[in-house]
């Protein structure tokens, strides 16, 4: 199925979970990323059980502080 991730169309397997998408997209700190699907914030406790649907629009929003420290 086709989904949009961070503005780009991707072909992924049907029913892909957000947790798996975070791995596939090599998101560095998945525990600290905010995920939105279409017009909803998805709670991180739901990443494993949320299956994406055809044409879903997914965004990853990252914490960004200053140049002084980064969290790994």
């Amino acid at each position, binding site marked *: 199925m086709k989904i949009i991730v961070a503005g780009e169309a991707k072909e992924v397997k049907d029913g892909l979970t957000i947790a798996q998408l975070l791995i596939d997209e090599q998101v560095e700190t998945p525990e600290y990323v905010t995920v939105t699907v279409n017009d909803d914030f998805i709670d991180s406790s739901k990443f494993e059980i949320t299956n994406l649907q055809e044409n879903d629009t997914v965004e990853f929003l990252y*914490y960004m*502080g200053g*140049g002084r*420290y980064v*969290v790994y």
Partner: protein
Amino acid sequence: MSFTNEQLERYSRHIILKEIGAKGQKKLLNAKVLIIGAGGLGAPTAMYLAAAGVGTIGIADADEVDLSNLQRQIIHATKDLGKPKVQSAKETMNDLNPDVQVNTYHTFMTSENIREIIRDYDFVIDGTDNFPAKFLINDACVMEKKPFSHAGIIRFKGQLMTYVPGEGPCYRCVFKDPPPKDAVPTCKQAGVVGAMGGVIGSLQAMEAIKYIVGKGQLLTGYLLTYDALTMEFRKIKLPHNTENCPVCGTHPTITQLIDYEQAECDGAL
């Protein structure tokens, strides 16, 4: 209030704009903006707002100017090393524009002082570099019903969003809590290109100016991200279902400000 001849000339490029004009320039001269953090983001923001004739600018920072700051914090100069950043910033702003009343706060913002300080201002700029401060500023602005501009920069990336009370998500809607102190395995100095502060800080100044003159669309309900390496700007629409937010939602559970602890990291930059 009428303009002096000097002001007419100084602000002529604003006054000529139909979106600003004499009316907008008067709004700027009557406006009060608080900038929290006189660092990479706060420096360009403060300079552009001072140059623009924002009549009262508050600047808050507890630090002194350090040599490693000068790669990006362009409001400070080599002669200012060791000086409180707020003092150095005030001098630069007043050199740029004596019209501006600069109020300095040489202190950390905490749950004890922030609400009282921001109460006097029309718009707040978050130019801080750490998450405890960012959440504190967000919550205080929500509680005091003050609009503010959030921004963060790291390496070659930056982001910003604008909160206006009642008009879309706050910072906590998007990022629920600071990264937990104990859950952070290690921290590294990240580094940042100096010009990132110029790009993102200037955008924060732009948001403040648009808010004050009441023109254009603000970044409310959007997160703007910038990647300097790929030269991509993305304006990401944020969800508007904010009713469950613990601070700006319909039934807030955070009603007192929280002083989070900063994660311990090796070696201050």
